[in-house]
């Protein structure tokens, strides 16, 4: 009598243990980031490995905000990431819609070409990109970063958007067009509201990708005014020492915009909005 019941309970426990273990492994570095950022420099090496320091300090945060260029990097990163996210999502939504709904000449090759761009390691194209960007005045500028991030994120974002459009039945647009809407009107009033989760996911994906990108930001921009935060983090590493406390404090600060961003869009990330559109 207790057989299947016990079995189910054990499976349930195993399931949650596995999920718990994953969460701990995934979040532990973040916790360590926070812990080090509030540990006074004097205690950093003297207390051994402890889960929480015996005394806490926000001195690192104060120092990062008052005495470094971090606020500037922060603003730069926000501008670059937000613009990239919006541009990429707009273009990717258009491309994804076309891939999902239309058949046109060269579609196969276009998709293939977009895939190919994703296959090269970025390091390979850094030098040519630099040579192209320098005469155009796109090095040492945020615009340059926005251009290259947008270009590099579009293929994946377009495929992502396509999969969301594929999930919306064609009949919905057809019904709207018969009801008196133009194709654009049908997309705006019917498809767009239903694609909000997809748009939110794409925005989030590109925003984080741009926010944490280091290679291009490091190679294309050398001037302080056009430095983004990942590059800025490197300034805490000097030849002889690493200022762990400030670096971690900066890292924690850098998490804030991403967290806020996901907090704003998380409502739209829930799926299941299309349930009930067609036969359930």
């Amino acid at each position, binding site marked *: 009598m207790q057989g299947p019941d016990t079995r189910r309970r054990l499976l349930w426990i195993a399931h949650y243990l596995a999920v718990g273990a994953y969460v701990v492994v995934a979040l532990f570095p973040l916790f360590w980031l926070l812990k080090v950022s509030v540990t006074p420099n004097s205690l950093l090496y003297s207390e051994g490995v402890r889960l929480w320091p015996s005394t806490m300090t926000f001195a690192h945060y104060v120092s990062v905000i008052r005495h470094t260029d971090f606020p500037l990097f922060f603003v730069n990163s926000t501008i670059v990431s937000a613009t990239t996210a919006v541009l990429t999502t707009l273009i990717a939504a258009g491309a994804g819609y076309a891939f999902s709904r239309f058949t046109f000449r060269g579609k196969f090759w276009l998709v293939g070409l977009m895939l190919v761009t994703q296959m090269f390691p970025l390091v390979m194209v850094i030098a040519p990109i630099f040579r192209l960007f320098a005469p155009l005045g796109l090095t040492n500028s945020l615009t340059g970063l926005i251009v290259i991030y947008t270009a590099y994120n579009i293929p994946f974002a377009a495929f992502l958007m396509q999969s969301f459009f594929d999930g919306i*039945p064609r*009949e*919905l647009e*057809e*019904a*709207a*067009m*018969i*009801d*008196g*809407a*133009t194709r654009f*009107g049908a997309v705006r*009033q*019917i498809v767009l*509201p*239903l694609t909000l989760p997809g748009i939110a996911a794409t925005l989030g994906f590109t925003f984080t990708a741009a926010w944490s990108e280091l290679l291009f930001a490091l190679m294309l921009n050398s001037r302080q005014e056009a430095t983004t935060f990942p590059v800025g983090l490197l300034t805490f590493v000097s030849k002889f020492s690493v200022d762990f406390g400030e670096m971690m404090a900066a890292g924690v600060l850098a998490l804030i915009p991403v967290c806020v961003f996901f907090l704003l869009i998380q409502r739209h990330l829930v799926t299941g*909005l*299309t*349930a*009930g*559109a*067609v*036969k*359930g």
Partner: protein
Amino acid sequence: MKAITIEGATKNFGPVQVLKGIDLAIEPGEFVVLIGPSGCGKSTLLRMIAGLDDLTSGSISIDGRRVNDLAPKDRDIAMVFQSYALYPHMTVRGNMSFSLKLKRTASQAIGRAVANAANLLGIETLIDRKPRELSGGQRQRVAMGRAIVRKPKAFLFDEPLSNLDARLREQMRFEIRKLHRDLGATSVYVTHDQIEAMTMADRIVAMNGGIIQQVGSPLELYDEPANLFVAGFIGSPAMNVLSASCIRTGAGTELRLGASTLAMVERGLDGVSVTLGIRPERVRLATADSGIAAELVLVEPTGLGTVAHLNLGGQLLKLFTTERPRISAGETIYIRVEPDDIRLFDPETGVRI
């Protein structure tokens, strides 16, 4: 003036021609059912009337106006989809008022139109729900309501009942028919269900292989099928189809099924092999002295009647009777057919002789 006129309409999808020249005129207020097996082109034809698919050649006119190059929104037609295609993020009210809002109808008029339609369909209480909170039958009604509020020139139905269970389908069949009687709007209804076609249509258009096989009233198609396709597609259980031959004898030309003579036929058919069609309910039980002997293979009671599967000289033949004969498999029974009930077809082309 015809409500809808289709002339020489063809449609190619790549190298495949799915419609091979369709000519059809639909009268105002008529309820026309397009019927045929999957892939016969009936849905494509409907989508071309709606403007969702382009014509490869030919023309379509609605109310005398050529609409080939008109967007769906400018054709003033309403369509009910098989999947209902309700807007999931809108309430029932939102779904039903969508088209009127696009036309910038005054909100009071919209409210009245929606209330009327909801009342007509018995969905007043559901008006503020989202589609996902509705059952299949309720969604179907909302889809109908969305079409009705517009008072369009024509209603198009694309297999609207196929997702419903049998009882609900029967009920909706009746309701759609009643709505059509009350509203009197021209309707084109696509289905693969011959019972829907028989019960609902003013006229049936039977299609196969991208060609119209026959157009006529339900009973015309049932009683006088133009070819073997229509004969086999309309009616359940299906018409019996048997090979027979016409033999010249002293008395005239006899239609022979194996060794049995069924009827006399015209002289011109001397020596010709024909395909013989006869409805199962027209095959009658007879006595040993007047009937043709057949072996009973299987008996299917349907409640309404009995379907008896017979072996007649190596060919299978179905008999349907509403009497309840005490017969069982393995017996030999005797049948007879009236000459008037026999339909003859050319075995090569399938065309009625």
